[in-house]
């Protein structure tokens, strides 16, 4: 009797839990929308106050038409379809900001909530993204913007999408050029690599050993930046005294990144600088260095809100300065690009121009060709975060 009652109660509890699970997911999606809009609001507030190199994603609605007419280049036109974004993974603030930028830009163009789809894969893997893309094809979306977890694994799924008449663009991390119209690049690969290399040069004082702490070994964008860094280091004699000890992979996990940083410190006693072009890696490394009061310094690409307490010029801070771009703007650019592709304003061919609301101060974007002859739109220059502006930007993203 007792057992039976217990098991019935358990089943009931499970069922209730299931309902609660569904309910909370629904509520979480609404709350994420609201938090997105509030963060965007703070963006506009702070960028208005500061010398904004990158403009805000929100508050574009009223001005977008006007800007388009004054600058002469085509605006993106009306947003009437369904626009989908597939971020790299759930549970990562960078991707969440990207998504909020995407959503706000589309709302500014007059999209309703039904027209905007942000579909996170269940794992940060290409496999999970394939199922998400397949599902979006079924839903008959007009465009898919995807931040790829693997350079080639999405090819088949994206080809199916194109065959079904869906416009495909990539952002953050690219796929093979044949399978998408255009890549929204956060900043040119060369520019990022140059900025990082110069930072290493500057922080190390021009000579010494340095190491790179990357994310996963198959992350397309990471590998592109690292390769470009190596090329720059070889091409210019200025960097001849810098020695790259190792490229370590922290897999974008806090623990593994911590372990790898500690291993670097033990293995290379003469290490001067660690360069970590990934937001998880740089935060983990910053903590290790600062906790150990190590003399090794850090630079790379990091989220200001995560890195606030590690950035400083003195010895008690591990990171003198670092770079990043505005993920909100990147999401917004992907949104404008999607709309422009769907409306036929651009085809993704090199030389196409369009204005993306307030982005780039209202100036038009031109599609350019990168070193692999693939078309891309470059959001802007990597932005430098140092002690003078970190407090301000930590509030934004």
């Amino acid at each position: 009797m007792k057992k039976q009652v217990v098991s019935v109660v358990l089943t009931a509890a499970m069922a209730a839990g299931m309902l609660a699970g569904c309910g909370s997911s629904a509520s979480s999606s609404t709350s994420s929308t609201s938090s997105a809009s509030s963060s965007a609001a703070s963006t506009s507030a702070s960028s208005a106050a500061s010398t904004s190199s990158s403009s805000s994603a929100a508050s574009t609605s009223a001005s977008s038409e006007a800007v388009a007419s004054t600058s002469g280049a085509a605006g993106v036109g009306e947003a009437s379809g369904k626009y989908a974004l597939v971020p790299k993974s759930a549970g990562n603030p960078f991707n969440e900001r990207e998504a909020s930028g995407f959503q706000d830009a589309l709302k500014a163009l007059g999209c309703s909530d039904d027209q905007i789809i942000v579909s996170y894969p269940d794992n940060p893997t290409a496999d999970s993204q394939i199922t998400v893309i397949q599902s979006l094809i079924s839903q008959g979306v007009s465009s898919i913007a995807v931040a790829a977890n693997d350079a080639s694994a999405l090819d088949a799924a994206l080809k199916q999408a194109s065959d079904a008449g869906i416009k495909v663009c990539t952002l953050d991390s690219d796929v093979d050029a044949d399978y998408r119209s255009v890549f929204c690049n956060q900043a040119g690969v060369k520019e990022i690599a140059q900025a990082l290399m110069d930072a290493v040069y500057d922080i190390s004082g021009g000579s010494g050993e340095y190491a790179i702490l990357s994310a996963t070994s198959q992350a397309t964008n990471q590998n592109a930046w690292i390769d470009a860094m190596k090329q720059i280091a070889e091409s210019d004699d200025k960097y001849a005294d810098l020695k790259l000890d190792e490229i370590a992979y922290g897999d974008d996990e806090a623990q593994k990144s911590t372990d790898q940083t500690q291993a670097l410190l033990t293995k290379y006693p003469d290490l001067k600088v660690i360069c970590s072009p990934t937001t998880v890696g740089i935060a983990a490394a910053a903590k290790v260095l600062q906790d150990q009061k190590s003399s090794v310094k850090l630079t790379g690409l990091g989220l200001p809100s995560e890195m606030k307490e590690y950035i400083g010029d003195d010895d008690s801070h591990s990171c003198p300065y670092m770079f990043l771009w505005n993920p909100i703007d990147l999401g917004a650019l992907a949104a404008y690009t999607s709309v422009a592709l769907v409306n036929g304003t651009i085809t993704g061919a090199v030389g196409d121009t369009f204005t993306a609301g307030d982005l780039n101060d209202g100036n038009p974007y031109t599609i350019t060709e990168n070193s692999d002859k693939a078309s891309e739109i470059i959001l802007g220059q990597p932005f430098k975060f140092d002690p003078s502006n970190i407090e301000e930007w930590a509030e934004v993203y």
Partner: protein
Amino acid sequence: MAGKSGRTIDATPKTSIKSRVLSWESGLIVIFIAVLIFGSIVSKSFTFSNVLREMPKYLSELFMMYAMGFILVIAEIDISVGAIVCLAGTMTCFANRAGAPLIVQIIVCIGVGFLCGCLNGVIATHFQELPTMIITLGTQIIFRGIAEVSMGSGGSVSLSDTMGFAKIGGMVGPFPIAFFLIIIAAVIFIFVLSRTTFGRKMYAVGSNRTAALYAGIPVQKIRQICFTLVGTMAGVCALFLLATSFGANTTTGQGFEMDVIAMCVFGGIATTGGKGNLVGATIAGFTIVCLRIALGQLNMSGQTILVIIGILLIVSALIPGINQSVKNRRKAIAAK
């Protein structure tokens, strides 16, 4: 209708219509239909052709599910299948890049799976004291490790010639090719498990290994065959997975082992062995696939879908126990 052993059908417990209707499988059919109805209500895109088009990605896992059903029936477990998929996929990509003809690539893919499964089997039969969970935990790390090392620092490898695999992933009318093969595999596996002496032997091994051994059943041979089989099917899975992704990377097949075990359990196969059949597992597999497709079309976050599947898994595994205790109680009352 005397069987080989002289046993007649009469000797087995009669299956009344009532017990048929109340069986786990018919319950699953009801759930399956409910999922289909749910899907078509909540999502406009949940149409016949869309569901079939989205299916190949999931179907590849079903191939492994049948073999995993065998493994669970003999009261073993294999958690290395996801890693085998990764390794087989990686090696096939290399064969493809080397310009091997398609048939060679297919042989490589299934062959790697076969070898990996064989290795699991050899260790399992020669070190019988070890639970297979531990053996496959070790080989899991090794298989994925080999794949990682061979892929090198890029961590990913893609097909250079996708023609052949595009055909494998192709469609016949509205049906993906994999769909037909799944049906064929289902028929074969269900037949073997429920209608052959080999199948009965598996149940015997799963119910009581020692008793089976004394009854003259070649226990170790059966274990070896089952492990080899699940590895081989993992190779088949990799083949169809490649047809959807045209490449492999270090995360390929991650979590597949849990997915297929969940499908089997949902289909009524107990991990303690000797119970369940593949008809249930087939329906359960398709139910989970359709549910995932439906929830995916709602753009529900992948993690929330996993929560729902987790709850389903526990509830479905709990029900037989509740059923049993209800029965026991009835019996107790009748006895009074």
